[in-house]
Structure formats: structure tokens, C-alpha cells
């Protein structure tokens, strides 16, 4: 006989039952359970995502290389306010863009948004625009790096041509790209922090030593936005933000896909806008608003360094030059990784030949895309060095501007795709995120794109009647048409691959029925957290 009588046992039973009920209730009320918490611990918070977005943009490269080019090329003093306005436009664009990223799988690159919002043909067209655009942005940076590195070496008494420096950088980037070395960790973080610190110190020095002894706010006046050159300035400004859109790649890695990515993307756009706007203003203060254009045209990328040299110890300028170099190099590496990843994603979905979908088994490096981009870059560098063209103008400024035009085209069509997506799938987001913001963004980006296409000749500084005034937008159009044709061929010949375009290439052998988005990814919808008990077999019925 057990020591407990039947009353005792009965009380135990009741106790067990009550306890079971309690734990059950507690488990259901406590929001993040064991599994969610364990998964969240390995996920990214806002700072990491911001870092991912800003590191690609390399602030020092943009401040020193980009802003002076904007002043010199456009010949307008509106740069500070243009950076702020571009940040605002991109921020509005981000609202709808991030909202859509929650509702589609494989929310990686622009082309997947376009293939979800419109159709797969336009998606492939976007991919065909994106590939040359991002590739050119990277290759253009080699020109800047070559010139800057050659300048630094000359200070040490070594005279080399820019091409040699660019080729050394090319070799390093190619090797690191194939090894898939993860510089993104502490090294890049420290570099980024140092860059931002240097930019802030320089800005402070420039504002503290204004031309004529007084600080003016003329260049910040919004009235300048009414001048016709402003829209053309915007494409150059947008090129300085490229990289922020990469944050949505991490949406499946973020702690809270609903908020983390949105906050981080907004934060990186606005922070970059403020930093760049402030720097552009500080430069104009240091030279005086009426002289900034002339000085910038004369000094080019040395503008900032020339302005601060009289006021700071020599070491600070040297540190600036070194950081400028490493910053360009980091940007080169980041763009290289982005381009090869883009090619990998396309290879995986069968848009590019299957070999592009191959990764190195151990490191996961998209080897083929990496090599392809390296070969292309090598060809361009060698071509330019034989051409003996000014690398700063024809390699850096031209290619990044043309690449920026491509990215602008992508953003514009992505903003249209967001509108189309939420028209087709109403009620998924509130009216601001799903309707108003995307439409406003589409309108603003249309204006910028329109003005850019018209004013491209002036941005590139080619004379009237030169074919370069119109050939680049036409080339992008040709790329897009080729993409549409390619998608049609795919639809006829490889219907399986066609169905997977923009869908991440998962299980390409079977899962064909992805035409309707009945299942957005797991954590994104509010309904996913409601309780679905797993029923044992006797309730479900025999299989």
C-alpha cells in the first residue's frame, strides 16, 4: 500500500491538473517563448543593421571624394541642402520599401521587389540594369583609389602611376573576394568609427575657421532648390547613399523583422544625410559660399585637406589621407561583395547560368560572381590606363555617376513596384506605409530621374552634340529590353526557373506554385504568433 490514501491521491491529481493549467496559461500569455528567444539571441539588432548599411556607403569616401565632385562638376552651392533633401526623399522611399519587404520572401535586391510588384519580365529587366550599375560603381572607385594612393605614395617620395596603385588594390580585392574574408567585423567597425570621428573633427575645424571671419548659412537656404541644376545634383548625391538599401537583405536575420529593419534603414539614411549635409556646409563656410565652386574645381579631392591644413597639426592631415585610402578600400570590398552576391542570387534563381549559383563549400563565397567582377574590373582599369584618360574624371566621376543613374532607375522602379504591390494586396499595411509614402516617393524619384536623364550631359561635362549625352540612358533601356526578352525565353524554355524569379530559388525542383503570396515568411504576419496546437494522430485522423 502506498502511504498516501485515496484522498491524498485525489488532491494530488487536482494539484497536477491546476498546475498544468497554470503553466499552460502562462506559456500562452508570455509572448516570446523558448524557441523565439533562442532564435532571437542570434539575430541582429538595430546597430548591427545600421552598420551594415553605412559601412557600404563609406562616409569618408563620400565626404572627401563625392562632395567636392558635386561642387566642382555642377558649379552650384546648393550641395548641403541637396544632401538633406535626398535623405528626406530616400527616407520616404524607405517607408514603403521596408513595408513591402515584410511581405515577400527573398527580400534581397531591388529586382525581387519589381518581380513581385509587377511581373517576372520586369524583374529580370531590373536585374539586367542592376548588374552593370553596381559593377560600374565599384570599378569607378578603383580610379579614385588609384589617384589617392598615388598621391599618398608621392608624399613618401615614391612616384607611381595611378594604374599601378589601382591594380594592387584590384589584386587585394580579388583575393579577399574569393576568400570571402569577413572584414565586416571589428576591423570595419573601428575604421568606420574613426572615419566618422575624422569627418566630425574636420567639419568642426572648417566651421571654426570661416572665410571672412563669419559663419554664413547661405548654402543651406532652401531657395536654391528652385534652380534647375539641383535635380542633376541629386543623382550625384544619391550615389553617396548607395548601400542603405542592402539592409533589407537582413530582414530574415533581424530580431524583430517588423521594426528593426525599418528603424535601422531610416536611421542610416538620416544619419548619412546629416553627416554629408553638415560636411558640405562646413566646406562652403571654410571657403566662403561664393568661392566654394572655384576652389573645389581647382583642388578636386584635396579640397577638404587643403582647407584644414593651415589650422591643424600635420599628423591629423596624414591620418585623414590614410583613412581616406582605407575607406575607399573598404567601399571597394563592400561593393565587390555586393556585386558577387547579386550575381550569386541571380545564378541561384536560374536567371544567370547555373554556375553562378555555385559557392565555395567551406566559406560560402560566391566564387564565380567574384571572379567575373574581378575580370571586368581588370579589363576596365587596363583599358583606361592605355587610354590615358584622367582617372578622376573619366573613371571615378563618370562610372559612379552612370552607376548612380542605374541605381536611381532601380529605386524609381522599385518605388513603383511598391505602389503596385500594395494596390494588388490591399489591407496589409496602413494607408501611410502602403499608399501615401510610396506614391510620394515615386513622384519625387520620377522628378529626379527625369532631370537626371535630361541633364546627364552637363553632369558628365561633355559638349553639346556628343553621343555621351544620351548613350547611357539608352544603354540602360537596352539592358532592360534584353532582360525582358531573356525572361520571355526563360518562360518558354525553363518554366521552372521562370517561376522562381525573385523568389529566392528555394527547392527549384518542385515548389512551382508560388504565384500567389499566400505565405509571407513566418514571423512577419501578426497571425503567425497565434496558437496552433499540434494535435496527436488520433485527433487528426490516420494519414
Amino acid at each position, binding site marked *: 500500500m502506498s502511504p498516501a490514501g485515496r484522498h491524498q491521491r485525489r488532491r494530488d491529481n487536482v494539484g497536477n491538473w491546476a498546475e498544468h493549467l497554470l503553466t499552460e496559461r502562462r506559456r*500562452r500569455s508570455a509572448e516570446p*517563448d*523558448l*524557441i*523565439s528567444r*533562442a*532564435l532571437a539571441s*542570434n539575430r541582429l539588432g538595430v546597430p548591427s543593421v545600421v552598420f551594415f548599411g553605412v559601412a557600404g556607403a563609406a562616409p569618408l569616401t563620400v565626404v572627401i571624394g563625392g562632395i567636392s565632385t558635386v561642387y566642382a562638376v555642377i558649379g552650384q552651392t546648393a550641395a548641403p541642402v541637396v544632401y538633406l533633401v535626398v535623405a528626406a526623399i530616400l527616407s520616404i522611399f524607405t517607408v514603403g520599401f521596408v513595408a513591402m519587404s515584410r511581405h515577400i520572401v*527573398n527580400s*534581397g535586391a531591388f529586382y525581387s521587389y519589381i518581380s513581385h510588384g509587377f511581373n517576372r519580365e520586369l524583374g529580370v529587366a531590373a536585374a539586367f540594369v542592376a548588374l552593370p550599375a553596381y559593377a560600374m560603381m565599384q570599378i569607378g572607385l578603383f580610379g579614385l583609389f588609384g589617384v589617392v594612393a598615388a598621391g599618398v605614395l608621392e608624399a613618401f617620395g615614391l612616384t607611381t602611376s595611378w594604374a599601378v596603385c589601382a591594380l594592387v588594390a584590384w589584386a587585394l580585392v580579388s583575393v579577399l573576394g574569393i576568400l*570571402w574574408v*569577413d572584414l565586416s567585423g571589428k576591423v570595419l567597425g573601428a575604421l568606420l568609427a574613426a572615419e566618422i570621428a575624422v569627418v566630425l573633427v574636420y567639419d568642426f575645424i572648417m566651421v571654426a575657421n570661416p572665410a571672412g571671419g563669419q559663419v554664413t548659412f547661405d548654402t543651406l537656404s532652401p531657395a536654391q532648390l528652385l534652380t534647375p541644376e539641383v535635380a542633376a545634383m541629386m543623382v550625384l548625391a544619391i550615389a553617396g547613399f548607395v548601400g542603405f538599401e542592402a539592409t533589407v*537583405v*537582413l530582414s*530574415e*536575420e533581424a530580431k524583430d523583422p517588423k521594426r528593426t529593419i525599418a528603424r535601422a534603414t531610416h536611421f542610416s539614411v538620416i544619419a548619412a544625410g546629416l553627416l554629408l549635409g553638415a560636411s558640405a556646409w562646413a566646406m562652403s563656410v571654410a571657403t566662403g559660399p561664393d568661392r566654394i565652386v572655384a576652389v573645389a574645381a581647382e583642388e578636386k579631392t584635396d579640397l577638404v585637406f587643403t582647407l584644414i591644413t593651415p589650422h591643424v597639426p600635420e599628423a591629423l592631415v596624414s591620418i585623414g589621407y590614410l583613412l581616406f585610402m582605407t575607406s575607399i578600400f573598404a567601399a571597394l570590398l563592400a561593393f565587390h*561583395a555586393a556585386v558577387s*552576391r547579386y550575381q*550569386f*542570387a541571380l545564378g*541561384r534563381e536560374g536567371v544567370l547560368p547555373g554556375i553562378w549559383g555555385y*559557392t565555395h*563549400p*567551406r*566559406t*560560402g563565397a*560566391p566564387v564565380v560572381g567574384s571572379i567575373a567582377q574581378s575580370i571586368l574590373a581588370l579589363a576596365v582599369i587596363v583599358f583606361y590606363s592605355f587610354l590615358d584618360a584622367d582617372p578622376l574624371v573619366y573613371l571615378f566621376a563618370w562610372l559612379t555617376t552612370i552607376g548612380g543613374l542605374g541605381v536611381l532607375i532601380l529605386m524609381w522602379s522599385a518605388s513603383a513596384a511598391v505602389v503596385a504591390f500594395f494596390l494588388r494586396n490591399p489591407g496589409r499595411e496602413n494607408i501611410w506605409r502602403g499608399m501615401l509614402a510610396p506614391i510620394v516617393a515615386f513622384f519625387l524619384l520620377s522628378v529626379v530621374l527625369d532631370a537626371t536623364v535630361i541633364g546627364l550631359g552637363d553632369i558628365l561635362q561633355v559638349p553639346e552634340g556628343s553621343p555621351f549625352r544620351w548613350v547611357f540612358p539608352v544603354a540602360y533601356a537596352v539592358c532592360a529590353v534584353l532582360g525582358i526578352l531573356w525572361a520571355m525565353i526563360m518562360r518558354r524554355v525553363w518554366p521552372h526557373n521562370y517561376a522562381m524569379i525573385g523568389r*529566392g*530559388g*528555394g*527547392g527549384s*525542383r*518542385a*515548389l512551382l506554385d508560388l504565384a500567389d503570396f499566400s*505565405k509571407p*515568411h*513566418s514571423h512577419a504576419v501578426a497571425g*503567425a*504568433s*497565434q*496558437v*496552433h*496546437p*499540434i*494535435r*496527436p*494522430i488520433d485527433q*487528426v485522423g490516420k*494519414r
Partner: protein
Amino acid sequence: MADQYYLIAHEDRTGRSRLHPRATGLGLAAALLAELVLEGRVGINDGELLVLDQRPPRDALNHDILDLLNTQPQHRDMRTWMAYLAQDAGLRVAERLMRVGAVEMVTKRRMLGSTQVLYMPNTARQRNAAAWASTRVANILVRGMELNLPDRTLVGVVVATGLTRHVMYGFENYPHIYHALPGMIASLPSDLREIVECTESLVGSALTVGRR
């Protein structure tokens, strides 16, 4: 089966993973889920897990996972479970292998005083057994023999995580194997095929992001 996959996915001499660490984790998670499916405890339908039989399996690790599935009924999405299991699948399968004596725990001291714990075959016999894991599969494939269900699933996970080349190392002269692989995966029962497809897509996304 997860044991076999572990031995295939790690180098027998150094104990390092042959794949991107996240890909290895996902492959092991897939193998563990497949074990539960093969034991008839769990079914998979349209990306959702379904506990068919709550009775504890014989193996301690399977038992552990099934208990977790039972106590967390609010999560049914297979991708969630794969991501969860992938986090520590390597460690847990290694511990299981240690219990049966196939690997041993080796602590390596690296530069700057950090240590690394590896689970690797340490004696000649263990190394032989580990190397046999992939050779055995390759042999059966090359000779065109009929694979049983666990082995077919194993091959599916190997293909999905990109270890095919390694398993076929030295058998490049038999291209007919490669042509047989898709058919073999297609012939799996639907639950197991879903696991393989899900693994492939998750490994792809993990590599696209490129984070460790």
C-alpha cells in the same frame, strides 16, 4: 543518420567543418528532423510539422527534440524549427557521436590563448569509421545498388547542402551518379522531400546573407 551526416560534413583529420558553419548546422538539423520522420513520430505537410506519435523514441537526442516539439505546439513552421535546431545541432550530434565512441572531444589551444573545442575522430579506428561514412554512400551509388530510405534521405541532405562533390571525390568517372541524384530525391516520400527542399532553400538564403 545525423551521425553519418556529421562524419561526412567534417574533416576526419582536423575535425573542421567542410562547409560554411551555418550550412553544416542546417544540414544536421534537417537530418535530425528526418530521423524523427523516419521513426514515424513526426509528419510534415506543406511546410508544417505535425506530431504523429508522442511516444518517446529510443534515442536520447530524438527524444529531446520530440519533447520540445510537444511542449512548443505554437510553432509549427518547419523553417522555424530548422533554424532553431541548426543553432546547436553540431554540438548535440557530436555529443551523441561521443556517446557511441565515434568521436572524442579535443581541446585545441589557438593563438592568443583562446581555446577551441573540436569533436573529432581521434584513433585510427574512429578515423576509418569516419572516412567510411562518405565512401560507403559513394560506393553504393557507383555500383547502382538500391539505397534504403535513410540513405536516400542522407544523400538528399548531402546534395542540398552542397557536399556532393566531396562525397563523389575520386568517383568522377561515374557521371551517371549525378544524373541519378535528382530522381532519387524526387522518389523520397513527401515529408522527407520537403525537408530536403527546405534545407536547400535555407542554405541558399544563409549563404546569400553571408553571415556566420
